[in-house]
């Protein structure tokens, strides 16, 4: 479904953020992309979505990420931004959720039906007509996820979906993520969340892939994590 072939990228000349990154994600896989702050996790997402261009090749569903393919590729990928305030720009949750379906040619009643179905599934029908600036941070994150699900994407990309959430909202997001059937690529340094939601982990460090394998193998490897400025997930930390 998603493939990076020897991808390198630098925002400024001489300061490479990614160098020679390669990985492949199969359909239906749930992959956690972890790494310290500034490791380049968000950059991987942006490259994948064609928001920035680097060297090397990136494929989504067999399509190379390049200008002509962008509309088709973006339609397959649902991206939940790290900052939900930047994701939602319509006055109400409902209108925000209808934005993508309308752009993809659905009629208003069809789009609204889809909105209802997604809200129903996430158990948040009461948010439908709420104003985006009037809902709490946790609700906003859930609403942002809902706007993306209303696109019915084939893969869901999430950039730090649990950042800045309280434990209860964090749990709600995790439960929602777990239930998604799509291919998932989730960046985070919330390793407990990754442990909960992803079967596979890719560890980015210094612009390279430091490890790639099953979560229970990588996330339990204290030495590996600490060498890359990460810590064991709390749930695995031995207590005295």
């Amino acid at each position, binding site marked *: 479904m998603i493939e990076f072939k020897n991808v390198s990228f630098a925002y400024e000349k001489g300061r490479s953020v990614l160098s020679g990154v390669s990985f492949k994600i199969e359909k239906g896989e749930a992959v956690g992309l972890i790494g310290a702050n500034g490791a380049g996790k968000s950059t991987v997402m942006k490259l994948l979505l064609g*928001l920035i261009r680097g060297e090397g090749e990136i494929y989504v569903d067999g399509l190379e990420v390049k200008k002509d393919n962008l509309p088709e590729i973006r339609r397959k990928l649902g991206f939940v931004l790290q900052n939900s305030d930047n994701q939602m720009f*319509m006055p109400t949750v409902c209108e925000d959720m209808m934005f993508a379906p309308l752009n993809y040619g659905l009629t208003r009643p069809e789009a609204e039906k889809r909105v209802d179905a997604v809200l129903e599934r996430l158990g948040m029908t009461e948010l439908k007509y709420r104003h985006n600036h009037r809902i709490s941070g946790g609700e906003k994150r859930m609403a942002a996820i809902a706007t993306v699900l209303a696109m019915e994407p084939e893969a869901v990309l999430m950039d730090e979906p649990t950042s800045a959430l309280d434990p209860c909202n964090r749990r709600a997001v995790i439960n929602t993520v777990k239930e998604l059937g799509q291919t998932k690529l989730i960046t985070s340094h919330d390793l407990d969340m990754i442990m909960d939601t992803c079967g596979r982990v890719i560890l980015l460090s210094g612009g390279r892939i430091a490890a790639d394998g099953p979560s229970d193998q990588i996330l339990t490897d204290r030495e590996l994590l600490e060498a890359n400025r990460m810590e064991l997930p709390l749930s695995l930390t031995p207590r005295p």
Partner: protein
Amino acid sequence: MNKMETALHELSEMDELASRSSPVHKLGPTAKLISTIIYIAAVMSFGKYRLSALIPMLLWPVLLFQLSGIPVRTCFYKLRIVLPLVLAMGLFNPFFDREPMLYLGSAAVSGGVISMLTLMLKGVLCLMASFLLMATTPIDCLCASLRRLHIPKMLVTLLLLTYRYVGVMTEELAVMTEAYSLRAPGQKGIHISAWGSFLGQLLLRSMDRAQELYSSMLLRGYHEHFHYAPMKPFSAADGIYLFGSTALFLFIRFVDITRILGSRFVR
């Protein structure tokens, strides 16, 4: 809440005011838009000394405030930043135009004072009319009706996005003023020496965020075409409203009610 946050909060409240329900809210956006344009044109077309004839124009906004249930207080509160600017427009007239125009008792009132007051009143009336339009019509309905009036798509989308981005900018501004004031305790506002870098930062940060917002639109299939809410067809109520308001404006514009009333009572 600091000052900026309040301002921000208010801005977002416009969306909410607009989504309330009242007879005025229920009217079609196109009728309201055209009526407002005619109102503003009528107000602006009054001669510069015709203060007394202009006063009855107040009738319309007062009526709309009543019908829409939007408090006049809210209007002036929200407009308090632009209001002084509008009022300042005519401030120099009294200095240039000193010919006495009329006598109140033994005091002479110069043409300059009259024209200043006229200009101020015109400004306030136009502001009130625009505010009422914005406060009773959701922005995307307004944009949809602008499109219907064949205003170029570019301009309308620009208007819509500006409306959204202004929110983004005030939000950044709020965060920055807060960060600044925390490190400059006891200082009122932002010291002039910091303005340059402050504004630069503000611009960069708003641009970053605007960029993200725009990517978020692109990623959800946006391409130059905005899907506005469907327009209700132009209803009979809309027609009556538009016709009635226009008739009233023209009547006030061309019949000097104040003078007629005045000549009745003062002989």
